[in-house]
């Protein structure tokens, strides 16, 4: 459980609060999306979820423990954070070692390490690069390496900052698949993203941030109906939501994926003949 209470935050040397009066509870088994304009405070917020940043005012508790009371390493075992920029996360000489690094640090046994690394390599299509230097990977491959490294140690909370950057369609589908799988294991996945089409397929609890303030917290569908808030947060609509709005009341529900939209349209077009 992550509990945030009256969190205010400003960076040192700066006068303005970047986060203002954030109150939030995120439990196990949830999938949560966080969206908002550039510079609205998303990355700053999630850096509080493993103690990397500490509140200027207010508190953040992880499984009941105040983030001021323990080290980042302590919280990291429970909360895995995958940064937007892979460059900030990659240190090892080979792809294999990169994934094994944290596992070793957390003191897992050799056998488990080998198993986990193998699984992660395969899942993220990286097996062929296991002995390659991470620096030579393409942009999308680097990003997948970071995902693989964090998922390998199996934290309860997985926080992904812009996970779809550099990912093609198949990789995105895979990502959705893995997030759904993690949820069935009662893990929590928090996704920060600008990719409205991706978020729509995920159908998460959606939190919108504008200017350091949470302006909306609700289920995905209701959020994408709130035009005023979308405007304020610089969000556009997923195409399927747009389609629903254009065709309403001919179709009465928002289709959550292509398959559903297809059968709605088919019914509509066939029904008329």
């Amino acid at each position, binding site marked *: 459980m992550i509990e945030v209470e009256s969190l205010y935050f400003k960076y040192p040397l700066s006068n303005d609060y970047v986060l203002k009066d954030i109150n939030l509870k995120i439990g196990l088994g949830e999938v949560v999306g966080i969206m908002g*304009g*550039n510079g609205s405070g998303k990355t700053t917020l999630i850096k509080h979820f493993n103690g990397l940043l500490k509140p200027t005012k207010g508190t953040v508790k992880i499984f009941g423990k105040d983030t001021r009371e323990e080290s980042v390493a302590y919280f990291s075992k429970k909360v895995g954070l995958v940064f937007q920029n892979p460059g900030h996360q990659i240190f090892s000489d080979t792809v294999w070692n990169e994934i094994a690094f944290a596992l070793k640090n957390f003191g897992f046994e050799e056998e488990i390490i080998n198993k986990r690394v193998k699984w992660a390599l395969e899942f993220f299509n990286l097996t062929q690069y296991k002995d390659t230097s991470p620096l030579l990977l393409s942009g999308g491959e680097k990003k997948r390496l970071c995902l693989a490294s964090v998922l390998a140690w199996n934290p309860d909370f997985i926080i992904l900052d812009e996970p779809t950057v550099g990912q093609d369609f198949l990789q995105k589908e895979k990502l959705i698949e893995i997030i759904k799988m993690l949820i069935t294991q009662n893990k929590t996945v928090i996704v920060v993203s600008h990719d409205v*089409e991706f978020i729509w397929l995920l159908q998460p609890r959606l939190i919108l941030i504008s200017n350091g303030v949470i302006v909306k917290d609700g289920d995905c569908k209701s959020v994408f109906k709130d035009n005023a808030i979308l405007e304020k947060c610089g969000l556009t609509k997923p195409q399927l939501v747009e389609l629903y709005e*254009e065709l309403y009341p001919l179709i009465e529900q928002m289709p959550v994926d292509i398959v559903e939209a*297809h059968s709605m349209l088919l019914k*509509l077009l066939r029904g008329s003949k």
Partner: protein
Amino acid sequence: METLAEIIKFINFSFSYSGSTTPILKNINLSIEEGDFVLLVGPSGCGKSTLLRCINGLIPHLYNGAYEGEVIVDGELVKNKNVNELATKVGFVFQNPENQIFMFSVEKDIVFGLENIGLERNEIDIRLKWVLHALGIEHLRYKPPYELSDGQKQRVAIAGVLAMKPKILILDEPTSLLDPRTALDFILLLGELNKKFGLTIIVVEHRIDLLTNVANKIIVLDKGEIVFKGLLKEIIKNKNLNLYGVGVPPVIALQNNLRDEDIIFDEVYLNVKDFAKEIKRRLI
């Protein structure tokens, strides 16, 4: 005889990075005409960024490897030009903005390139104001790069390249970190620059829904080979695109799926409004 000027041309071109055994680009033959707006897509790791590096000269001048065939940019062989010369013609926005921002403030970063090519102060000011405004970063003008959010960095990187007013603009996933509104506005700006000034643009982008309204051509790369190239409107309706990791936008996927059910559309509707209008028309 050609009527339009070919501004970029690959002839029987192959490349592999030194140390790697497999070629990353294989037998590429390609010509891009002045004023084209090209969308370059394909699965992660297929060689998109590598192809772009061959246009701006990072390959072969900074990356070593086996270089076969020719790459010609604006009438000259890339391998005979140095990277700095090329940079005045070819503006390049990197996949990762942090590879691009070096100076102590946003303003200095943008101005740096302009001073380097010896522009007058007055012109520099005009261009600076233009790009700060176009990317919505006036308020960040005096900020150091390490105080910027990721999307703000990407905006600055783009601004720096636009200010140079290159003849060819190459962008490697330029909107990946921009919020949706900003991404849309920026793509529309690219469309305008392309139409008004005939700027040649090549964009790598996985979120292709953003680009279907502005790009006219598309190239699909797979395992280092070109598998499709041509007019976007033609190629986008090819169902096999999925096999190459290209996520066609939902509105187009729907048209493709309906076509399988013998519901045929004479035209490809690239945006939802037009598609919905057509659906409604059929119901009358």
